[in-house]
C-alpha cells in the first residue's frame, strides 16, 4: 500500500502546493516561499519513491491500478521503473532550481502590470504535477490527460511572462507553441484509440506484452502517435515551434521547456511508441533518419544564430535527435542511450538557459552581436558557461557524452531486423553532428566570452611570429557593452540554483553506471524481446 501513497502523492503533492500557492497569492513573498517548499517536498517525495519502488513494472511493488472510467475502459494506472525514475528525479530537481530562482529573479510582466510571480509559481507547480503524472501514467489516455495538463499552463507562462520587450512576437510564440503541441497531442490520442481498437486495452504494459503491431491500422496508429510525440520532442521538421517558444519564454519557462517538457516527447517514444511499433516497418529507419537530419540541421542552424537563447534552443533539437535515434534502434542499448541523453540534456540545457537568463539580466540583451568579452567582466559566470558548453558538446567525463556516444553505438549495433548499412551511415552522420556541435559551441565561446576589441599583434615582417605575455590587456570595459550598469558576477542564490545541475553533470559523467544499469534492466523487462 505504501506504493499507492508514493505514486499518488508524487502527483498530488505539487498539485496541492500549487493550490496553496494560489491561495496565498495575495501575499507574493509567502506564495513564492510556499511554492519553493512545494518543490522541495516533491523532490524529497520523488527520492523516497525512487528508494522504495521495487520489482518490475506492473508488479505490486511499483504500480497501482484503479479503474477510473469504466465505461471507457480507462484506468488510473501509475507505475515506475528504471526508465521513468531517472526522468522523475531530474524533473523534480529541475523544478526545485527553477522555483528557487524565482525567489530573486522574478520575470517582469509586460505592459507594466503587477509582477504576479505567485501565479507563475503556481502554474509551474501545476506543470510539474502534469509532467510527473505523464512520467508515471501507464494508461494511454491518462498519459494524454497529464500531457495536456503539463502543456497548457505553459501557454500562460510564455504569453504572460515572456519577453516583455516584444509583445507580438511573444504572443505569436506562445500561440504557435500551443497550436503545435495541442494538435500533436490530439493526433497522438487518435493513434492511441487505434491501438485500443487492436489491443482492446489502454494499458501500455499489457500492450507491450501482448500486442503485435502489424497491418495498416497498426501502422497508422504508430504513425499518429509518432507524429504527436515528434512535435513535442521535437523531431525535424516539426521543430519549428521550438526556437520561438524557448527564446521568448521567461528564463524559468525556457528552463522548464527545455529540461522537462521536451522529455515528455522522448519518454513517450520509449514508453508508448516503441511497444506499438514494429521495427520491420520502413517507418522506423525513417524516424531514425529524421533524427539524424535534425542533429546536423540543428548544429548548422546554431552556427548561424545571432541570439543566445535561440542558439541554445536549436541545440536542443540536435540533442533530442540523439535520443530519438537511440529509441529508433530498438535495442536495450538504444533505450539506455535515450534515457541517459534525456536526463543529461535536462541538466545541461537547463543550466545553459539559466546562464542565458543570467546574462540577459545583466546585459539586457541576448543578442550575440552585443555580448562580448564576458571573461573580462564576469569571469565566474563565463567559467560556468564554458563548463556547460563543454558538457553540452559532449566532452567525455561529463554527462552529455554518454547519451550521445551510446546512441551512436546503438545505431551501429541496431536491432537485427533493421537495415544495417543505413544505420551505420546514420551513426557516421550523427558523429559528424557531434563535431559541428563542438564547432558552434567553440564559436560561441570565442565570440561571446573571449572575443571583442583587441590590439593587433601581428608583426609586419613575419607571418608566423607570435607575441606572448600580454596577459594584462584589459578587455573593453563593461560600460562599452552594457551602458552604465556595473556587472555583478555570479551571486549566491545563482550558485545555489546552478550547483546541483553542475554537480550532477559531473557525477553522471564520471559514473554513468548509476543510470545505465537500472535503465537496461527496466528496458529488458518492459520491452521484452528487443535487442
Amino acid at each position, binding site marked *: 500500500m505504501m506504493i499507492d501513497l508514493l505514486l499518488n502523492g508524487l502527483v498530488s503533492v505539487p498539485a496541492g502546493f500549487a493550490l496553496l500557492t494560489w491561495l496565498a497569492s495575495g501575499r507574493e513573498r509567502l506564495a513564492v516561499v510556499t511554492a519553493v517548499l512545494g518543490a522541495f517536498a516533491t523532490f524529497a517525495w520523488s527520492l523516497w519513491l525512487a528508494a522504495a519502488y521495487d520489482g518490475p513494472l506492473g508488479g505490486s511493488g511499483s504500480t497501482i491500478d484503479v479503474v477510473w472510467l469504466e465505461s471507457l475502459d480507462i484506468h488510473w494506472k501509475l507505475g515506475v521503473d528504471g526508465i521513468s525514475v531517472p526522468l522523475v528525479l531530474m524533473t523534480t530537481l529541475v523544478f526545485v532550481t527553477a522555483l528557487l530562482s524565482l525567489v530573486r529573479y522574478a520575470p517582469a510582466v509586460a505592459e507594466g502590470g503587477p509582477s504576479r510571480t505567485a501565479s507563475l509559481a503556481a502554474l509551474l507547480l501545476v506543470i510539474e504535477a502534469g509532467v510527473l503524472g505523464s512520467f508515471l501514467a501507464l494508461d494511454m489516455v491518462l498519459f494524454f490527460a497529464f500531457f495536456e495538463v503539463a502543456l497548457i499552463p505553459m501557454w500562460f507562462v510564455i504569453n504572460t511572462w515572456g519577453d516583455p520587450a516584444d509583445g507580438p512576437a511573444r504572443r505569436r510564440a506562445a500561440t504557435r507553441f500551443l497550436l503545435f503541441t495541442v494538435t500533436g497531442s490530439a493526433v497522438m490520442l487518435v493513434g492511441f484509440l487505434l491501438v485500443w481498437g487492436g489491443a482492446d486495452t489502454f494499458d501500455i504494459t499489457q500492450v507491450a506484452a501482448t500486442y503485435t503491431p502489424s497491418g495498416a491500422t497498426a501502422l497508422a496508429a504508430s504513425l499518429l502517435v509518432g507524429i504527436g510525440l515528434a512535435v513535442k520532442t521535437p523531431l525535424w521538421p516539426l521543430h519549428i515551434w521550438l526556437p520561438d517558444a524557448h527564446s521568448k519564454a521567461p528564463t524559468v519557462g525556457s528552463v522548464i521547456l527545455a529540461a522537462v517538457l521536451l522529455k515528455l516527447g522522448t519518454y513517450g517514444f520509449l514508453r508508448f511508441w516503441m511497444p506499438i511499433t514494429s521495427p520491420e516497418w520502413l517507418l522506423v529507419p525513417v524516424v531514425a533518419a529524421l533524427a539524424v537530419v535534425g542533429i546536423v540541421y540543428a548544429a548548422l542552424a546554431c552556427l548561424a544564430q545571432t541570439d543566445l537563447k535561440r542558439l541554445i534552443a536549436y541545440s536542443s533539437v540536435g540533442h533530442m535527435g540523439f535520443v530519438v535515434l537511440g529509441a529508433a534502434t530498438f535495442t536495450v542499448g538504444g533505450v539506455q542511450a535515450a534515457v541517459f541523453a534525456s536526463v543529461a540534456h535536462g541538466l545541461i540545457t537547463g543550466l545553459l538557459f539559466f546562464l542565458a537568463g543570467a546574462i540577459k539580466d545583466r546585459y539586457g540583451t541576448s543578442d550575440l552581436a552585443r555580448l562580448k568579452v564576458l571573461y573580462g567582466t564576469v569571469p565566474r559566470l563565463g567559467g560556468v558557461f564554458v563548463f556547460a558548453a563543454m558538457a553540452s558538446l559532449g566532452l567525455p567525463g561529463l554527462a552529455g557524452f554518454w547519451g550521445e556516444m551510446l546512441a551512436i553505438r546503438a545505431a551501429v549495433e541496431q536491432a537485427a531486423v533493421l537495415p544495417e548499412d543505413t544505420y551505420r551511415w546514420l551513426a557516421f552522420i550523427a558523429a559528424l553532428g557531434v563535431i559541428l556541435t563542438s564547432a558552434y559551441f567553440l564559436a560561441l565561446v570565442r565570440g561571446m566570452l573571449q572575443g571583442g576589441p583587441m590590439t593587433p599583434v601581428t608583426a609586419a615582417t613575419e607571418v608566423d611570429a607570435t*607575441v606572448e605575455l600580454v*596577459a*594584462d590587456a584589459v578587455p573593453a570595459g563593461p560600460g562599452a557593452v552594457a551602458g552604465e550598469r556595473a556587472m555583478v558576477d555570479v551571486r549566491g542564490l545563482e550558485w545555489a540554483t546552478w550547483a546541483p545541475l553542475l554537480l550532477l553533470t559531473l557525477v553522471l559523467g564520471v559514473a554513468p553506471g548509476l543510470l545505465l544499469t537500472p535503465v537496461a534492466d527496466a528496458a529488458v523487462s518492459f520491452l521484452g524481446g528487443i535487442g
Partner: protein
Amino acid sequence: MSWVVLLLVALPFTSAALSLYLGHRGELAERGVAVGASGLGLALAAAVAFPHLGDAEPLGRVFASTSAAGPPIELSVYVDQLTAVMLLLAHTVAFLVQVYSLGYMAGDRRYPSYAALISIFTGAMTLVVVADDMWALLIGWELMGACSYFLISHHWELREARAGAVKAFLMTRTADLGLLFAIIVLGMRFDTYRISTIMGEIAAGGFGRDELWLPALLITAAVIGKSAQFPLHTWLPDAMPGPTPISALIHAATMVAAGVFLVARTFPLYLSAPAALTTLGLVAALTMLVSAVYALFTQDLKRVLAWSTVSQLAYMFAALAVGAYAAGVLHLLAHGAFKALLFLAAGSVVHAVGTTSMSAMGGLRDKLPDTFITMTIGFGALAGVVPLVGFFTKDAVIGATWEAALHGRLIWPWVAWVLFGSAVLTAVLTVAYSLRAWLLVFFTPAAAPATFDTEVPEPHEAPLSMKVPLYLLTVPTVLGGLLVAYPELVFGPGEYDLTHPWLAAVMTLLVALTAALVAWQWQRSGGRDPWHPFVLPHPAVDRIYDVGVVRPVEWLARMVRAGDRDVIDGYADGAGIATRGIGWLFRRAQTGNVQTYLMVVVVGACAVAVAAGVAG
C-alpha cells in the same frame, strides 16, 4: 597497490578543484596546492611505476562496472611496463612544469585556472595510461584535448590564441571520432571493452592478416590527429600562443605523446594489421620531412620547436610501423626529456626578451648563462649528438627501419626503405635547424632594438624556480642513453637489438658534416641567419580545409538559418488559416485565459470523438 593507482588518477582532479576553489585567496594556498599535489603525484607515480618496470607481472584490476546490455563499461586499471614509464614521464614533466610556472607565471591574474588546468591535464594523461577500459581511455584522451584548448587560449585576448585553440580542439576532436568508432567496432567483435583482454586475444593469434584492419585504421586516424601527423599536422604549430610551460607539457609528456602511447598500447592489433602499419609508416615518412623543412625556415623559436616535435613524433611512429616497439617507446621517453628541456629553456628566453621571434634574440649567451648551457644540451640531444640521449634513440629508430628494409616481413620492404631514407634525411635537417636556432638565439649579435619596444628591459636570467627544472631535465637528457644500452631495465628480458654501431658511426659523420656546413654558412653570412629567412606559406592543407570544409559548412549554416526563417516558417504561418482562425477565436473569447483553455479542451474532445468513430 591498485588503489594507489586510482588515487593517482583522482589526485590531480582533486588538486584542480582545490586550486579553483581557493582561487585568489592567497598566494601560498594556490601555489602550494598546485605544486604540492603534483609533487605528491610524482611520488605516487614513482611508487606505482618502479615495481612494474623490468621483469614484472602487469597489474590489472576492475573496480566497478555497469551490468547492462552489451559489454560492460568498467572502471579498471592496468599497469605494465609501458604504463609505468609513461606515468614517470608525465608526472615528472608535470611536476617540473608546475615548479617552473611559479616563476614564469608570477603575477598572472589567471594563475589559479592555469594551475588547475595543468592538474586536470596530468590527471587525464594518467587516466589514459592506466585505463584498461577503452571508454575510460577515451575520456582521458578527449579531456586532454579540452585542456589544451583552454590552455592554448590562456591569453584569450590574442586573436591567434583564440584561433589556435579552436583549431586544435576541432581537428583533434574530429580525429577522435576514429577512436570512438574503433571502440564500438572492437566492442562488437570481442564483446568486451577491456584493452588487456582484447590485446591478449589478438596476441594469442587466430586472426588472419589484416582481418582487423578497420579498428586499426580507425585508431590510426585518432592518433594522426592527436599527434599532429600529416594531414592534421597544422594545429600544433598554431597552438604556440599558449604559455610556454604548457607547450612543454603538451609536447613532451601528454597530449601528443598520447598518440604514440596508444599505438604502443594497441600494438598487437597493429601487428595483426600491416595495412595500418603501412599507413602509419607512410604518414610518418612524409610528416617527418615536411615538418623538418618548416622548422628549418621559420623565424619563430617556439615554432621551430613545435615543428621539431611533429617531426620527432614521426620518428616514433616510424619505429612502431616497422615493429620496433622498444625503439619507439624509448624515443618517446628521450624526446619527452629533451623537448621538455627545450621548451622550458625557450620559455626562459621568451621570459627574458618578451617575444618568441628569433630576430629579436641573439647574443644571449652571456646574458642567460644557465639557459644557454641547458638549452645547448637540449639542442644537442635533438640533433643527435653523441653521447646525449637523442643520439642513441634516434640511432635505434633508424637502425630499426634499416633492418626492416633489409629483412623485415611485417610491411613491404619499399615502405621500410622510404622510412629509412626519410629518417636519414630528416636527421640531417634536424641538425641544420637545431644548429641554426641555437646560433640565432645565443650567438648572432643582437639586432638593434626596434624603436617601438624600447621599454623592454635588458634581458635577465630567470628566477631559481625556473632554473632548477632546467638543470634537472639535463640529467635524463645526458644519461638517458643508458636505457638504450640496458633496455631490460624497462621492458624486462628479451632481444632488443637497439644499437647499430656502424650505422651510428655514419650518422655521426653526417651530423658533423651538416653541422660544419651550417656553421660555415653562418660564418659566411656574417654571423646572421645562415640562409635567407624565408617565410614558407602557411601549410597548404589548411587552405584545403578552409575551402573544402569550413566555407561549405558556413554556407550551409546560413542556408539552414534562412530556410528555417522563411521556408518552414511559411508552412507554420501558412497553416495560417488555422493560426489566424484560432487566433480569431481566441480574440472572440475576449480576454479570457479560461476561455482559451476551454477552447483547447473542446478541440481535443472533438478529436477524441472523431477518432472514436474511426476506431469504433
